[in-house]
């Protein structure tokens, strides 16, 4: 046991990862016990599952933005794919005798695979670009996904599936048809509600995947490409392969977040409000404020920034104003050089203070 403790003490990366996991678990325990004690308001209960899918979104986007070093503005698109995967699957099977948990679990796997597939497909053209150009094209793909899912009609009858972009009246359907996606009206009649426990488990799985990936041969290759593409190539790193890999995994995890999102709704629609670029930018704000490349930072920033607008409801119309001010304050405190220098000074002061006490 002491050997185990020593090995943790000597490995800083492992230590930092354990802190991240500990944080998530403590947060979970606090929220669960508050809910059990009945202190949590209904609006707060609704927030719990939001924490989960926003954290997964932020952590997976950080894999693209912070670890791979490419700015992606279409992350909500992959979330949309995951959400619709669940929606279609749940709708088709709603009459069957599969339990809701089983449907959720199967669609989580399916969503991860399908979102990864689309990530791969979109990655082929997108990852040939660099910087601003890449950002703009991902933005466009995100919008395409949102618009296509928002105007797609799918119905099922005894002849199988029918697709249309013009409306259900276009399709020749049997009497006992089932409209799965009704264009802009989306998928209706879903069972809402996903447990916070499932959400937390998925957050932890996401963290395991991303953190283990970063601290491995693969992660090093991805970060080498970020730091210096030319040197990475000259050192024998397959740049295309590892860029695709990181982008695909990032998309896949966003798909998982999409299932959580859709699972908490009774009607799933695809609008610019939920899967548009506003959402992608909001997730990017979480990543940037938490610190690009810092996974734990993404988790903390997401929790604060999801909680804040809710907690500021009492100031009504000043809500977004205060939110904006907090964003600016966080940016300055986290990233301005003088603020960082001050923070380091304070940490050193506290540390040296402790040592003096120990010496006494």
């Amino acid at each position: 046991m002491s050997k185990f403790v020593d090995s943790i003490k000597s490995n800083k990366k492992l230590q930092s990862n354990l802190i991240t996991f500990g944080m998530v678990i403590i947060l979970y325990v606090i929220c669960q016990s508050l809910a059990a004690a009945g202190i949590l308001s209904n609006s707060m209960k609704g927030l719990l599952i939001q924490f989960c899918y926003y954290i997964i979104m932020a952590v997976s986007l950080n894999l693209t933005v912070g670890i791979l070093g490419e700015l992606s503005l279409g992350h909500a698109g992959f979330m949309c794919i995951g959400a619709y995967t669940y929606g279609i699957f749940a709708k088709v099977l709603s009459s069957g005798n599969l339990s809701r948990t089983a449907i959720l679990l199967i669609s989580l796997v399916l969503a991860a695979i399908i979102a990864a597939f689309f990530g791969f497909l979109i990655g082929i053209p997108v990852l040939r670009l660099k910087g601003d150009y890449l950002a703009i094209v991902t933005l466009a793909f995100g919008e395409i996904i949102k618009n296509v899912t928002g105007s797609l009609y799918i119905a099922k009858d005894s002849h199988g599936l029918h697709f249309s972009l013009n409306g259900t009246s276009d399709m020749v359907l049997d009497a006992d048809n089932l409209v799965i996606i009704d264009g802009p009206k989306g998928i209706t009649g879903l069972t809402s509600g996903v447990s916070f426990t499932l959400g937390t488990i998925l957050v932890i799985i996401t963290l395991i995947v991303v953190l283990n990936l970063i601290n491995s041969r693969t992660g090093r290759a991805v970060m080498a490409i970020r730091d210096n593409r030319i040197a990475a190539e000259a050192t024998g790193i397959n740049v295309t392969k590892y860029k695709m890999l990181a982008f695909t995994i990032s998309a896949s995890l966003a798909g998982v977040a999409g299932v959580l999102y859709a699972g908490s709704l009774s009607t799933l629609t695809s609008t610019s409000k939920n899967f548009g670029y506003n959402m992608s930018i909001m997730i990017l704000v979480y990543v940037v404020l938490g610190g690009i490349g810092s996974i734990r930072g993404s988790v903390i920033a997401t929790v604060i920034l999801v909680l804040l607008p809710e907690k500021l409801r009492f100031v009504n119309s000043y809500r977004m104003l205060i939110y904006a001010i907090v964003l600016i304050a966080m940016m300055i405190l986290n990233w301005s050089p003088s603020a960082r220098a001050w923070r380091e000074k304070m940490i050193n002061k506290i540390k040296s203070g402790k040592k003096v006490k120990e010496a006494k």
Partner: protein
Amino acid sequence: MENTRPLLEVNNLSISFGGLRAVDDFNITINKGELYGLIGPNGAGKTTAFNLLTGVYKPTEGIIRLDGEDITGKKTIDINKAGIARTFQNIRLFKELTVLDNVKIGLHNRFEYSTLAAILRLPSYFKVEKEMNEEAMKLLKVFDLDKEANLKASNLPYGKQRKLEIARALATNPKLLLLDEPAAGMNPNETKELMDTISFIRKEFDMTILLIEHDMKLVSGICEKLSVLNFGHVLAQGPTQEVLNNPEVITAYLGE
């Protein structure tokens, strides 16, 4: 030694950028174990020649053979796998990563486990990572960088960054090492130390080295053979002292 196959054989290598022939009819033959210098005034095409050898540019004409294998026009990573590693004129380290990780990236193609094994932390991950750490630390020790293993690469002093770049190149286990102005920006002391390091690498790793350099003290001190480039052409080639005393070379460097 006459009958042994040369390690690097370059014939009629040329590249044109539009109307400019940056490297024209470049020939070089390097035998195993040699320390070869490539010199020339600024803009002579030295780095372009390096970029041709490492596949950054595709040659318009000519053939490059490494150890008998034709590597002309191959991709950079395939040329690296074939056995050519390089450093850069303006240091290109993986700045945000640690010194140890920089070398471990050099080891990337020599030690393998799957991405899945990494995510699931399978036993192969721990086993191979341990081997990689040991191998990387061995290399760092050679360059006296083992104490800085956990520092961020960008926090190293300049001279050590140069050394780390060489260590990373050696980690790929090359047959031929290309050094692009290794002494650029170094003070005389650091240059002296670098000369010792290069001679040491050559012995320790039995390495064949081709280097670009402006520092004549370094060149005349350690290179056995020289090639002089001027306006993309080979001006002179041969044993170091002979080349340095060549009147044409003196003219190109110092002017009439």
